């Protein structure tokens, strides 16, 4: 007996391995830039170094939920299971990066704003975004792997993404008095280099994690397939 997903158990292809090595190098290089090349910010001081991982984590969360949005539409139009697998895998990674944003944000906020948390527009909308995708994961966890679950998940994946532009533009929609986040970020040239290298590294990290997560999802499908054949 054999599953159509069996090839997932063959060894990592060369591209994934190369991506892993490139990622390790990029992480190391990015860390050097953040630690030594980027200057210490004048107002906030050393704690501003959190910015170089905090913002790329938020970018990765948006990217992950963007992938969920596209894959969910593709799933609903084609009913091809691969889009559902890709969407569910991307949600998990997006939730992890959102969690990183929600943890590192307060750690940065305490010494700068004097409070761990403030119910201001960007923080509140980010929390809502996180909770929507946690609900997506709970839906999948408690409803099994049927087609109905995939359909509901796809709808939630599409609707949930509507919050992403709201999070991004929240600093412009409300008055400056209601905000703690800055409406504009000014960076010197060295800071920009460190930031964009970090952003690139985190994007690679997202791609790498997604490949690994999709592999697990296909392995799960292969085992499930074989179990059904045996029954």
């Amino acid at each position: 007996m054999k599953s159509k997903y069996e090839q997932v158990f063959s060894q990592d292809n060369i591209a994934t391995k190369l991506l892993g090595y490139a990622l390790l190098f990029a992480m190391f290089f990015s860390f050097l830039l953040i630690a030594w090349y980027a200057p210490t910010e004048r107002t906030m001081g050393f704690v501003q170094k959190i910015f170089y991982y905090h913002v790329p984590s938020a970018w990765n969360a948006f990217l992950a939920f963007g992938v969920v949005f596209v894959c969910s539409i593709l799933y609903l139009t084609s009913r091809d299971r691969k889009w559902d697998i890709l969407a569910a895998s991307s949600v998990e990674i997006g939730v992890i990066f959102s969690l990183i944003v929600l943890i590192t944000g307060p750690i940065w906020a305490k010494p700068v704003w004097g409070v761990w948390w403030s119910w201001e527009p960007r923080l509140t909308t980010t929390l809502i975004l996180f909770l929507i995708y946690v609900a997506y994961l709970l839906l999948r966890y408690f409803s099994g792997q049927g087609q109905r679950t995939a359909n509901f998940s796809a709808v939630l994946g599409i609707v949930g993404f509507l919050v992403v532009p709201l999070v991004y533009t929240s600093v412009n929609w409300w008055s400056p008095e209601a905000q703690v986040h800055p409406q504009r970020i000014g960076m010197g040239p060295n800071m920009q280099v460190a930031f964009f290298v970090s952003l690139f590294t985190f994007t690679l990290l997202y791609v790498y994690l997604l490949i690994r997560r999709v592999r697990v999802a296909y392995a799960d499908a292969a085992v499930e397939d074989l179990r059904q054949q045996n029954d």
Partner: protein
Amino acid sequence: MKNFGFVLAAYSIIWGLLAVYLGRLTMRFSQLKKEYQHLKHAHPEGKQ
């Protein structure tokens, strides 16, 4: 380096969380691979 502890805490949480996640994915994959091999050998092709 004022507030070094905050930066260290943030960096540790980020890389710690990602390392745990990647480790969990690797372990889950190995577990599924073993399970697949077991199921495959328990019911070889042709056996009804």
